[in-house]
């Protein structure tokens, strides 16, 4: 299963001839006696005895190839074709350059039009991106981002938003067997300038800017970092449907009773900003008969992944309709988003037993606790039924108001804030 991944990872680390051997999958969750059978058995890829391969790997003399030094160059051609439009669509699809849907072919004319959406030079470096930490980082220019923006169907006036997203270097297709998803929230005047939707249906397929900006992030994540190659740079066991569009939305700043998200993060109201989040899924509230939305939030968000150091995952992004936001402020007394975050933080506790039982906590946080890192070291000594915070701090619980006030609903995702970038810098 991981043969291609191992070979390409070793190749990209400069060791195309790295010696390795495989054992049956999985190792995780198997007993010592099964592991012994793996050791005494055969490599499922080569069919040879595992220990024979191990001993040969350590003792067989190196070949000339294995002793080589120097560099492996990997130049990409600038143009593709010439060919018919149908054949080029098929080529892009077969090369894994799309999301499986038809794209707008990035002809030189269309890319030139897209480049009019920014004052930056086409050959200017925008950033570097990698599919996940072990993988290499690729560089990309303004022109390369424009190509992917054209493919997504975006208009030139959306291009500064897409460039801002690309400038963060954050991929929308993070390679993990857990199948991460991403979200992108847009704040500031650009939302209205390019006709984004922050009201009714904002999180659905009803708006050209929302749809194509989100899609552009996925396409550029695939193509500009070598990401999204199944079995090599994408290992999500099930994948995540949110990855088609990354839930691209604009915050409803008109009817939001609190500060806009970007202002909370230190930007000025008149600045246009993209903010990115990472997580897995979104839940829906179905409303609250008693209109105690905060209690309902704490209840449903009590199933979100607890904080895990090392990977720094775990957070929450609450998406209340303006009706819910107004009620929370006016009837429940949460006159700031921060107060609501604080309340949710204190009311989404987790038992010590359940905390240490979380897979990510066991892999990444337990070693830290064993090394004496606090507060984890102290949590190891607590009784199983003691309660501890699920989230690292109230700052990990963010709130973005979105919706058209047709009803008092809220949604929330187990999404942690990654960072923000200024759109205005890319105009």
């Amino acid at each position, binding site marked *: 299963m991981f043969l291609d991944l191992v070979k390409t990872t070793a190749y990209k680390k400069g*060791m195309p001839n790295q010696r390795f051997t495989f054992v049956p999958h999985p190792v995780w969750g198997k007993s010592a006696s099964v592991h012994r059978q793996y050791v005494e058995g055969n490599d499922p890829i080569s069919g040879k005895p595992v220990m024979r391969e191990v001993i040969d790997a*350590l*003792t067989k003399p190196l070949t000339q190839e294995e002793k080589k030094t120097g560099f492996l160059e990997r130049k*990409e051609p600038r*143009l*593709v074709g010439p060919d018919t439009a149908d054949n080029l669509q098929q080529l892009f699809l077969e090369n894994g350059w799309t999301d499986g849907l038809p794209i707008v072919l990035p002809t030189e004319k269309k890319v030139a039009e897209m480049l009019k959406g920014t004052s930056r030079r086409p050959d200017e470096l925008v950033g570097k991106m990698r599919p996940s930490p072990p993988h290499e980082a690729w560089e990309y220019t303004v022109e390369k981002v424009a*190509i992917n923006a054209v493919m997504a169907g975006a208009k030139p006036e959306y291009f500064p938003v897409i460039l801002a997203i690309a400038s963060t270097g954050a991929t929308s297709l993070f390679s993990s067997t857990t199948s991460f998803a991403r979200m992108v929230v847009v704040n500031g005047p650009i939302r209205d300038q390019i006709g984004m939707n922050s009201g009714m249906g904002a999180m659905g397929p009803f708006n050209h800017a929302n749809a194509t900006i989100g899609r552009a992030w996925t396409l550029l994540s695939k193509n500009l970092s070598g990401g999204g190659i199944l079995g090599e740079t994408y290992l999500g066991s099930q994948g995540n449907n949110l990855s088609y569009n990354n839930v691209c939305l604009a915050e409803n700043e008109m009817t939001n009773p609190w500060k806009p998200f970007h202002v909370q993060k230190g930007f000025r109201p008149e600045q246009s900003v993209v903010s990115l989040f990472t997580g897995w899924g979104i839940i829906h509230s179905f409303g609250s008969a008693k209109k105690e939305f905060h209690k309902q939030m704490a209840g449903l968000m009590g199933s979100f992944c607890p904080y895990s150091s090392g990977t720094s995952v775990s957070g929450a992004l609450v998406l209340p309709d303006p009706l819910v936001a107004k009620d929370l402020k006016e009837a429940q007394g949460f006159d700031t988003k921060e107060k609501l975050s604080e309340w949710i933080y204190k009311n989404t506790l987790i038992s010590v037993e359940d905390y240490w039982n979380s897979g990510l906590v066991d892999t990444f946080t337990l070693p830290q606790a064993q090394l004496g890192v606090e507060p984890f070291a102290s949590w190891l000594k607590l009784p199983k039924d003691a309660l501890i915070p699920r989230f690292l701090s109230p700052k990990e619980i963010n709130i973005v108001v979105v919706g058209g006030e047709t009803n008092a609903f809220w949604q929330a995702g187990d999404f942690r804030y990654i960072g923000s970038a200024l759109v205005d810098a890319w105009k």
Partner: protein
Amino acid sequence: MKKAANGLFVGVFLLMSFLIVCTSGAQEVKMTALNPRGNPPAIPLVPMAPRLDTLDGKTIYFVDVRFPGGKSFLLEMMDWFAKNMPMVKTVFREKAGPYMDADPKLWAEIKRNGDAMIMAIGH
């Protein structure tokens, strides 16, 4: 009448020929597109470390990155060496930090005291 029929036939033939040529021409339109891929960096080659002439009398480090199940698997491999190649000295170590991070202290220890390393990597 015959002349008119011939003329009509020629006219239809010319029209059909014209339409076939137009249709064929439209199908043959070709274009170029720009490559959407980013720029992968040149890869500096890392030559493999020299191999051992024999494992007898040598020290092999078994490094666990703490991927679930890795430690148990490596201990079974060490047990295999104890039973089948007792002249090989085996040392077990857990790498510090998340499994994609380096552990310079451990690498230094292995360079100082070891002859080879086997690392169990999962995903």
